[in-house]
C-alpha cells in the first residue's frame, strides 16, 4: 500500500512551502556552530535547559556516524534519529563494499539525497532538520565541514551556524571573525564565542566536539570549555572598559 498523494507541492509563486516550513522547524531547534580550522573541525552545540527530573545525559545532539565522521543537527530530534541511523548503515555498507572509509562529501551527499527524496514523494513530509557533518577529506585526511538542509542541498562551509533564532546574525558574526588556518585553540575559541551570543554564559550550556586530522575526535570536557568561556568573558570586559574612558 503506497501513498500517491504528494504533500510537498509548488505554490503559485514557485515556493515549496512544506520545505520552507520545515526550515522554520530548524529555526526552533537549538543552535549548532561549526568551524573549520587548519587541522580540525569544531562543532559546538547549545544545550537547552532540560526538565529537572530529566537525565540530561540522554539528550545528545552530537552523534558518531563512523570512526571519523561526526554529525550534529538542529531541528526535530526524532527526525534526526531516523536519518542518523540510515547514514550509519550506509557508512558501514560503504566500508564493506569499498574496503575504505567513506568521505565526508559522500556521506553529506547521502543525507542530502534522502532529505530531497522526502520533498518529492507521495505521502511523506520533509525531515525537519538541518545537519552539520564533519568528516575526512580523502587525499590528506583533513577534516572538512558540510551542511545539509530540509530542501536536500548539501554544501561545504568554512564556518556555519544552523538552528536557533539568531542564525543569520551569527553567520554575519562569523563572516567578520573567521580567518583561514585557525589552530585548534583559536577554532574552539571562535565557536564558543559565537555560541555565547545565544546561550546563557557557562560551560553547562554548551557541548563542544573537535575532530582532528586523521580522524581522532574528542568531546571537550566541561572544564576546558569553562576556561575558554572565562577567557572570552575577561576579554569582553577588558574591551568594554577600554571603551569607557574614550567617552
Amino acid at each position: 500500500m503506497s501513498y500517491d498523494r504528494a504533500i510537498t507541492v509548488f505554490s503559485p509563486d514557485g515556493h515549496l512551502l512544506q520545505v520552507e516550513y520545515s526550515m522554520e522547524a530548524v529555526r526552533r531547534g537549538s543552535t549548532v556552530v561549526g568551524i573549520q580550522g587548519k587541522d580540525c573541525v569544531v562543532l559546538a552545540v547549545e544545550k537547552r535547559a532540560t526538565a529537572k527530573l530529566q537525565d540530561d545525559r540522554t539528550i545528545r545532539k552530537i552523534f558518531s556516524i563512523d570512526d571519523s565522521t561526526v554529525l550534529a543537527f538542529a531541528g526535530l530530534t526524532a527526525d534526526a534519529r531516523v536519518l542518523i541511523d540510515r547514514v550509519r548503515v550506509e557508512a558501514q555498507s560503504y566500508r564493506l563494499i569499498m574496503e575504505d572509509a567513506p568521505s565526508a562529501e559522500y556521506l553529506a551527499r547521502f543525507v542530502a539525497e534522502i532529505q530531497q527524496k522526502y520533498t518529492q514523494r507521495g505521502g511523506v513530509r520533509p525531515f525537519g532538520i538541518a545537519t552539520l557533518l564533519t568528516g575526512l577529506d580523502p587525499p590528506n585526511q583533513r577534516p572538512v565541514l558540510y551542511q545539509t538542509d530540509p530542501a536536500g542541498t548539501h554544501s561545504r562551509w568554512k564556518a556555519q551556524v544552523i538552528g536557533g533564532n539568531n542564525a543569520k546574525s551569527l553567520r554575519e558574526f562569523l563572516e567578520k571573525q573567521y580567518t583561514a588556518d585557525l589552530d585548534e585553540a583559536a577554532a574552539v575559541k571562535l565557536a564558543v564565542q559565537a555560541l555565547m551570543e545565544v546561550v546563557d554564559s557557562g560551560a553547562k550550556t554548551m557541548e563542544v566536539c573537535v575532530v582532528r586530522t586523521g580522524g581522532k575526535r574528542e568531546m571537550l570536557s566541561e572544564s576546558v570549555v569553562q576556561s575558554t568561556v572565562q577567557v572570552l568573558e575577561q576579554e569582553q570586559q577588558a574591551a568594554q572598559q577600554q571603551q569607557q574612558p574614550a567617552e
Partner: protein
Amino acid sequence: MDTVIGVQYKDGVIIAADQANARSILIYQSNLDKIKQLTSHSAMGVSGPNCDLVQFTEYISKNLQLYELRHEGTKLSTKAQANFCRNELAVALRKGPYQVSALLGGFDLTTQKPSLYYLDYMGTLQKVPFGAQGYAQYFTLSTMDREYRENLDETAALDIIGKAIHELQSRFLIKQNNFIIKVIDQDGVRVHSQGADPADT
C-alpha cells in the same frame, strides 16, 4: 585443511591459525591472515573456503561496528558477538550456507574476563577453555587437554599453543610452515607473531 587453535588464559585469549590459502593440490598464498579482528577486544580465527571466510568475517565485523555506533557507548559482550555469529550461520544454513568454522575469542572490559567460543558451519556454538578447528583437532586437542589448567598466564598459554603447533608440524601430513598468533587481552587485539607478513606488498 585450515588449522585454527585457541587457548583461553587468566587475562586473555590466544588464537593461532596457519597462513595458507590453498585448494586441492595448489597453494595460492602463504601469508593469509585468517584471524579477523571484529571489535576492539575480539577476534575470530576462521577456516573454510577463502570466499566464505572473507564474506562472513567482513559481514560480521561491519555489523558489529554498526551495532556499537548505533548504541553509542555500548560494547557487545563476547558472548553476544558469538551468538550473533551463530545466528547468522544458522539462518544461512538452509539458504546459502557459509562453510566457515571459527574460534571467536574476546575480552570483556565490563567483567574483565576473557572467553573463547567454538563455532562451526552447522550453527554449533560452545564456550570452551581451548579449542581447534579442522584436522588440527585430531592432533592438538589431546595435547591441549593435557596441558591446560585454570588461571594460566600468557607465557604458559603461548607455550601450549607452541606445543600444539609443534605436534602438527611433526605429525600432520600437510606442511604448514607459517602460523599467525594473536593475543586478545585488556589492551585489545595484537599480533604476537607471524610466519609471513600478511600485507599485500
